[in-house]
């Protein structure tokens, strides 16, 4: 029996910024109990500085609330996951979010806002896509730390032992997923579409410096969608800043606090709409995922995982404890979109950003010898269609394309 997997030719990944699963999609538990979010009767709380329990509340605002930017660097995330406990035998209890945010301003009232989440009606695009396609209950950031290293896992399958935001060196023989594809025989096509030159890419040190030909702009992505010219693999970076542009004023769309969450909703809607209305809809899958949780609460402890090829020294994490890359980061929203996915699919297998190069490599190349241990052990979100995939895990499982996929329209 043929399925959507037999039609698949293009995979697109849009990686947004700094929002946790419960913060963005937690409200959906009330709609579909299979989605591991939050409802008011759940017992999850965090204690504030006065030792009072703080429950999650559906009071998140689009902008102006999470200011200052909650600390999402490695030492702070360690507090968030372990509640401040250190030393051997400690348990990941997700009890440190309010404490961590309190450390920044010592304002008890403000620190409680880290436990706010969005109502379903606040996020019509993300929540519709989650309910209509496949939502991942267990997609975690690759490391309990900040953006640059988490995005490195999406490009390389590893952060080369780094948990900080400084430039890192690619360590041979590991290559980026883009290099693997364009140097393969037969050659495949791959592009990183950044919003524009003023927003650029977060992978400067290696990709932008050495492989400018891999890059295109968001406007080019939209054009490629419309003309049926998508490469085999596309990675889209949102707009990281407010700035002047050729079209006037560009407003940041990455949803990184304190940028406007609604601008990110508009971006996601536009990406989806152009793919859906273009000639490649039948043979394209779109993954919308977030790089890390941005220090915002989530109730699911990240699991342990196989160690990576590289590990950080005791000094690097800033916690006084060595980090072996044997535990994932906090859970993030992740949604896979395709007209071949049954409505209401909920996936409970564990994924992290190393799953991205693992999936792309296995789907387009079959095998590749030089991958990190984390990538080698990562699950794939699209099964390879070469007889080596696990048919039971195929999310593009329908034998006929859906004709009931949602449409979005910008309000006037």
């Amino acid at each position, binding site marked *: 029996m043929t399925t959507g997997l037999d039609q698949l030719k293009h995979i697109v990944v849009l990686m947004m*910024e700094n929002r946790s699963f419960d913060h963005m999609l937690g409200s959906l538990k009330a709609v579909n109990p299979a989605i591991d979010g939050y409802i008011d009767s759940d017992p999850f709380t965090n204690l504030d500085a006065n030792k009072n329990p703080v429950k999650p509340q559906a009071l998140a605002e*689009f*902008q102006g609330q999470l200011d200052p*930017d909650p600390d999402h*660097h490695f030492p702070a995330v360690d507090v968030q996951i372990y509640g401040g406990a250190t030393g051997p035998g400690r348990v990941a209890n997700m009890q440190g979010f309010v404490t961590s945010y309190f450390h920044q301003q010592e304002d008890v009232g403000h620190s409680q806002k880290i436990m706010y989440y969005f109502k379903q009606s606040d996020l*019509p*695009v993300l929540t*519709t896509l989650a309910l209509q396609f496949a939502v991942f209950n267990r997609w975690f950031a690759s490391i309990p730390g*900040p*953006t*640059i290293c988490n995005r490195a896992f999406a490009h390389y399958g590893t952060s080369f032992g780094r948990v900080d*935001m*400084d*430039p890192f060196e690619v360590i041979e023989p590991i290559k980026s997923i883009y290099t693997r594809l364009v140097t393969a025989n037969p050659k495949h096509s791959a592009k990183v579409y950044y919003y*524009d*030159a*003023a*927003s*650029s*890419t*977060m992978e*400067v*040190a290696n990709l*932008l*410096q050495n492989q*400018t*030909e891999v*890059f295109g702009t968001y406007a080019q992505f939209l054009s490629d969608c419309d003309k049926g010219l998508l490469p085999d693999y596309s990675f889209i970076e949102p707009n*990281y*800043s*407010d*700035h*002047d542009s050729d079209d006037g*004023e*560009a*407003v*940041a769309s990455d949803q*990184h606090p*304190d*940028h*406007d969450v*609604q*601008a990110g*909703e*508009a971006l996601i*809607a536009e990406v989806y709409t152009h793919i859906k209305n273009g000639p490649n809809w039948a043979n394209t899958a779109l993954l919308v995922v977030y790089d890390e949780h941005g220090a915002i609460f989530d109730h699911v402890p990240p699991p342990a995982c196989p160690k990576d090829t590289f590990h950080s020294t005791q000094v690097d994490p800033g916690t006084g404890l060595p980090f072996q890359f044997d535990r994932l980061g906090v859970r993030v929203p992740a949604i896979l979109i395709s007209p071949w996915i049954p409505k209401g699919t909920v996936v409970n297998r564990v994924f992290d950003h190393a799953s991205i190069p693992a999936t792309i490599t296995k789907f387009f190349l079959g095998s590749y010898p030089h991958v990190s241990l984390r990538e080698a052990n990562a699950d794939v979100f699209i099964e390879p269609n070469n007889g080596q995939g696990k048919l039971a895990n195929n999310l593009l499982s329908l034998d006929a394309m859906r004709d*009931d996929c*949602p*449409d*979005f*329209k*910008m*309000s*006037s």
Partner: protein
Amino acid sequence: MEPILVPRPKSVRDPKRPVSSLLLAQVKHLREAEKNLPSRYQSGIFSHAIQTESEAARYVQAVTEAIHAAHDDAAAQRVRKAPKRKHVIEIAAVADERAERRTRSISKQKKKKGKS
């Protein structure tokens, strides 16, 4: 199914928004990359003084475009005119001609010797 309405973002660009740690990290990466560029591609922007998102975006654009320009210029320089070379057949024909001229010259000299 009716299209789902997406609220138009109400936010406007804030030119004075303080630069975030993420953008400062990106600036740091670009600063390191800029050091590797020849002087004619330098932005002339003092990146350590960046305080707002607008300022960061201006620097990010300048260095990103410079990196692209440097690569494009290097690629253009690789395309240079190859030195004009005679084809193998032409070279062989010239060699044959040369040999024939030598032969004619030798036989002329022999004839001259024979006459005198």
